[in-house]
């Protein structure tokens, strides 16, 4: 187009001028003549109608001219004039020559001078001229290799310059400055394209798309899209032409760079409707983009913020064609959410991410769409709820509950809705807020507001409505009223010193307690309550009497159900159980451990058994109680294990703390205050606590299958074993226990429940801390080495963060042991 438009004969005038100039340069002649030659080139170029008017031959000649220009020693060149030659020449050619010059190591222009020209080149907006030039060539099928090379040079300019100048490049070449500049250039070109399209001329945008794609894949999305997205958001608001240009710009990005571009747009678009304007139906037209949007960003990655998710899914919901994708996405998300394997094996963060995505999808669903997939939604809800509730991690359980509630809310427009009881926290509140359609602009749920509102609502205990209700604030009687003859002074009170709190007389003998607790006289609720409350101290005060009936008492307590609502009943019962177990450890431990594996107990009871064993073991092994009176021990059990599912956390905390204190001791030497020494009562009985528990775990009963469904109890069992192992430090049985435990851990090491794995890792920690080093080395070197490699695996690959942390801790412990060992032998 350009060459054809040039009047014939003009080329003839430029050609000799160029030849003359090249010759002058080759002569490296005197400044005067060179300046004249260069001046002639400039004026005839201008006369020819600018660089766009050059024909192929002239371009080649001009290239030769520029190349000799850069080869010429800088000092010889007339200052100011030679730079203009570059800035006025055809931008593509100039850019290539300059970068070649920068790349070559030979003599000629100083690299700093070349960079100086490049800087001017950028600042005078020649970059957009360059892009525009390529776009025009492309419309008439230019040379792809050349364009590729050019593309490379444009995108990698900061690196080239920086390489040459060893980092001392001018600020404009710093990526954070260069890419916004490039973005501006792209915008200018797009404007030109828009103009020429409006003028009815064809134009190719693909080179610009390539530039965009390559910049994005180089990780400069922030810089370039920061400029582009803001500007394009404005431009596309009301102009269809601009929308089409923008769609085309993204569509023409080659597949290999598509992901980076789409990701950049999704992250940076200020809202779903803007994103929809910018991308159009890209996801429908482009397979790669579809994969990125509907699969990769939702199912494979999980680091994106909620706002990005909202953008993405909002974008899918804003067009009929894309809505089918939205439904498909929801289906796939639900598949993942309701897959028990995913729930078991993927990290909690990812599950949170998927739950969020599901809730956002649900918020976009319309009534007819819900109708069409109500059954599928219901099925996935049931399935997913089950596997989430099966999980032993409270966070996952809660996620399951929130999502299931939300699905049920959506599919049961009338009729009862699923409702779980759980404590609301920030996470659940955020999740629930996602179910409400956010306006299409950026709305980050304002949590603090919600909270203050809640607090405000929780404060007053005042009835809300009722026309004449009053707050329960006493109306202070007036002073005058007081002075009235209104007084009770003529009435003399009787002695009321006997008016004390009513106490039910609790039984004084253990056998009476048994009678009350097993008695069928339901009337004596008060007595029963008093007995439950008094039992622990009674047991502690009468060890001999307790021993006579210890197993019977343990049995009664294990089966004791809450008859009336006593405050802290579970705690009272547990303390009594612990008291019985510590008073007569061997038979009671034998009884409890045998019951753990017998038929017809609820999971709760089995976990109670574990709790009691741990607390008693702790008490027996804890030296600080000796010397204190038995009574004070009764009031202050050494560690209050809270009940319910939270206790696992505390177990771990305890173990962690112990590990920490122990580790410190290794590295800092003996800084601990020595406790009063006394015999460890746990020494003689540790085996009775430990071995029966570890023996039967792999034999399923009809109602109890540790290796199957009841993995929550297995998790608790494993944690219990870890604590027992830790408490058995310095006992005789410790080595045998360690060996058994190591085997046990080895069998279960690939268990799918992360809570169980955490327990196993705690077991290893306890073992390393409790078993004497020489015994470890003598009896279980091989197992330990195997364990070490397993730990390494866990540390790298386990999806659960806590597991990875524990594994690392264990490896550090091993390392410490090794160091200590190295220090000792001398």
């Amino acid at each position, binding site marked *: 187009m350009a060459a054809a438009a040039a009047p014939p004969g003009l080329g003839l005038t430029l050609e000799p001028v160029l030849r003359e100039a090249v010759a002058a340069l080759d002569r490296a002649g005197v400044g005067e003549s060179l300046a004249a030659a260069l001046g002639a080139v400039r004026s005839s170029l201008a006369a020819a109608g600018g660089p766009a008017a050059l024909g192929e031959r002239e371009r080649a000649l001009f290239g030769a001219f520029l190349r000799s220009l850069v080869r010429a020693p800088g000092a010889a060149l007339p200052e100011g004039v030679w730079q203009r030659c570059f800035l006025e020449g055809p931008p593509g050619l100039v850019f290539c020559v300059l970068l070649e010059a920068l790349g070559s190591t030979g003599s000629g222009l100083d690299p700093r001078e070349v960079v100086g020209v490049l800087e001017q080149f950028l600042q005078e907006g020649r970059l957009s001229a360059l892009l525009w030039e390529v776009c025009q060539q492309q419309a008439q099928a230019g040379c792809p290799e050349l364009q590729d090379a050019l593309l490379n040079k444009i995108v990698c300019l900061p690196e080239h310059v920086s390489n040459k100048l060893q980092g001392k490049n001018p600020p404009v070449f710093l990526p954070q400055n260069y890419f916004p500049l490039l973005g501006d250039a792209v915008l200018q070109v797009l404007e030109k394209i828009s103009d020429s399209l409006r003028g009815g001329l064809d134009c190719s945008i693909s080179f610009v798309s390539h530039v965009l794609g390559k910049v994005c894949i180089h990780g400069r999305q922030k810089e370039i899209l920061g400029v582009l997205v803001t500007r394009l958001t404005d431009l596309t608001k009301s102009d269809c032409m601009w929308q089409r240009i923008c769609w085309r710009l993204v569509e023409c990005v080659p597949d290999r760079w598509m992901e980076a571009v789409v990701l950049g747009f999704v992250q940076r678009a200020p809202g779903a409707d803007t994103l929809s304007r910018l991308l159009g139906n890209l996801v429908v037209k482009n397979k790669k983009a579809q994969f990125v949007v509907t699969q990769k960003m939702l199912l494979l990655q999980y680091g994106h913020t909620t706002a990005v998710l909202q953008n993405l899914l909002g974008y899918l919901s804003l067009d009929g064609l894309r809505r089918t994708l939205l439904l498909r996405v929801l289906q796939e998300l639900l598949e993942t959410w309701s897959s028990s394997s995913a729930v078991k094996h993927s990290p909690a963060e990812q599950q949170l991410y998927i739950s969020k995505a599901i809730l956002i999808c649900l918020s976009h669903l319309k009534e007819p769409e819900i109708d069409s997939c109500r059954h599928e939604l219901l099925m996935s809800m049931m399935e997913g709820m089950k596997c989430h509730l099966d999980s032993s991690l409270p966070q996952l359980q809660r996620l399951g509950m929130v999502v299931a509630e939300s699905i049920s809310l959506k599919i049961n427009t009338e009729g009862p809705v699923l409702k779980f009881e759980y404590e609301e926290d920030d996470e659940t509140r955020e999740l629930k807020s996602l179910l409400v359609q956010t306006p299409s602009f950026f709305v980050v749920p304002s949590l603090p507001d919600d909270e203050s509102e809640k607090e405000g609502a929780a404060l007053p205990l005042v009835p809300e409505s009722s026309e004449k209700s*009053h707050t*329960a604030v*006493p*109306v202070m009687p007036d002073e005058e009223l007081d002075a009235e003859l209104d007084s009770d002074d003529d009435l003399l009170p*009787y*002695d009321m010193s*006997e008016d004390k709190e009513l106490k039910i007389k609790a039984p004084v003998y253990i056998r009476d307690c048994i009678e009350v607790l097993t008695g069928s006289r339901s009337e004596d609720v008060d007595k029963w309550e008093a007995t439950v409350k008094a039992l622990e101290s009674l047991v502690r005060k009468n060890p001999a009497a307790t021993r006579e009936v210890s197993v019977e008492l343990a049995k009664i307590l294990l089966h004791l159900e809450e008859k009336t609502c006593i405050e802290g009943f579970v705690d009272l019962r547990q303390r009594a159980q612990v008291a019985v177990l510590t008073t007569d450890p061997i038979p009671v431990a034998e009884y409890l451990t045998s019951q753990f594996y017998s038929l017809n107990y609820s999971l709760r009871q089995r976990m109670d058994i574990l709790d009691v064993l741990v607390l008693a073991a702790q008490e027996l092994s804890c030296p600080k109680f000796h010397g204190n009176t038995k009574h004070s021990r009764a009031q202050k059990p050494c560690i209050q294990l809270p009940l319910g599912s939270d206790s696992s956390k505390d177990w771990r905390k305890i173990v962690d703390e112990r590990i920490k204190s122990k580790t410190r001791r290794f590295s800092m030497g003996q800084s601990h205050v020595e406790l009063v020494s006394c015999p460890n009562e746990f020494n003689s009985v540790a085996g009775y606590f430990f071995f029966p528990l570890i023996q039967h775990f792999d034999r399923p009963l009809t109602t109890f299958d540790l290796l199957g469904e009841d993995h929550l109890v297995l998790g608790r069992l494993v944690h219990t074993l870890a604590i027992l192992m830790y408490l058995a430090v310095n006992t005789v049985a410790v080595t045998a226990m360690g060996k058994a435990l190591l085997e046990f851990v080895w069998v279960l090491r690939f268990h799918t429940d992360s809570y169980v794995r955490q327990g196993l890792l705690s077991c290893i920690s306890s073992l390393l801390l409790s078993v004497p080093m020489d015994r470890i080395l003598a009896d279980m070197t091989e197992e330990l080495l195997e364990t070490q490699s397993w730990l390494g695996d866990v540390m790298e690959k386990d999806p659960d963060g806590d597991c990875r942390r524990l594994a690392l801790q264990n490896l550090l412990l091993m390392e410490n042991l090794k160091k200590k060992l190295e220090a000792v032998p001398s």
Partner: protein
Amino acid sequence: MEKFSAPMALPPPDPQFVLRGTSAAVHTLHFSCGGPEPDIPLLFSGSENGFIHVWNLKTHRVDSALDGHGRKSVYCVETMGGKDRLLSQGRDQRICLWDLAEGRTSVTDSVFTEHVGFCRCSLLKVAQGRWLMAMAARSLEEVQILELPSKTSVCTLKPEVGAKLGMPMCLKLWQLNCGSQPVLLAGYEDGSVVLWNVSMGKVLSKLICHQEPVMSLDFDSEKAKGISGSSEKVLSIWSLNEQQNLQVYKTHELVNAGVSDITIRPDKKILATGGWDHRIRIFGWKKLKPLAVLDYHTATVHCVSFSDHSIPRERLLAAGSKDQRISVWSIYAET
């Protein structure tokens, strides 16, 4: 708690006498001692085995035992006008009207309440031979007002939808003076006391007095002040201002939780409470000054009642308990 026990304080008195023989827990008591001289002072007691015993207070013996509630617990007994007409309410969901004149012991009429709770009905004489009776109705939150003896329904008091008051637990029907509008005070399961305008069937005022169900309340229309107790450790005293608004006046903390009955003596000088802690407590009504703690029973005290003797110094206090005994006391009778 304030310490009122001065060093010189007298020990609390023993019961004047004790009535035994109901052979079941006593749930309600009612005196009839106001009659002129030849009349024998009587005490009616209703017990868990469904019998109403008529105690002769001269001989301290049972005169007669009335069986009209199918052996289901009787939890409210009132006389209507004189000792010859009696009203009783039982767990058989019936309210019976008795004719006891000339030695008869027959049920003349009965009302089927269909109420499954144990909210005592409240009786108010509006004219000679005409009474209004408030009772908990079949529907859970409702109170029904009937005219007796015609048994015509006057109105039904329904809380607003969504008020969530729960069942009515205790009722007190009163009017400021003869001929003025009857008003009902009702204590509800959610701990609130509601003032109802009976003729309009509208809530005049509502006050949350307790966190637990209101077990009992009594009201002094002269001072426009009332008192209520619940299963908590607190007595709540509230007042009614001229705009018919209930306001908390003060609260009084008890040593033990649970108040099953509260009665203000007809002369409004003292009041008695029966507690789950087996004790009867006496307070001065004006300032709620604690006066005495009567510790005699060995189980929950279910009811306390003051006698209507016309001669003040003969006045008695009776308390019925789960331990099947009725203790009768003479306390502050001189003042």
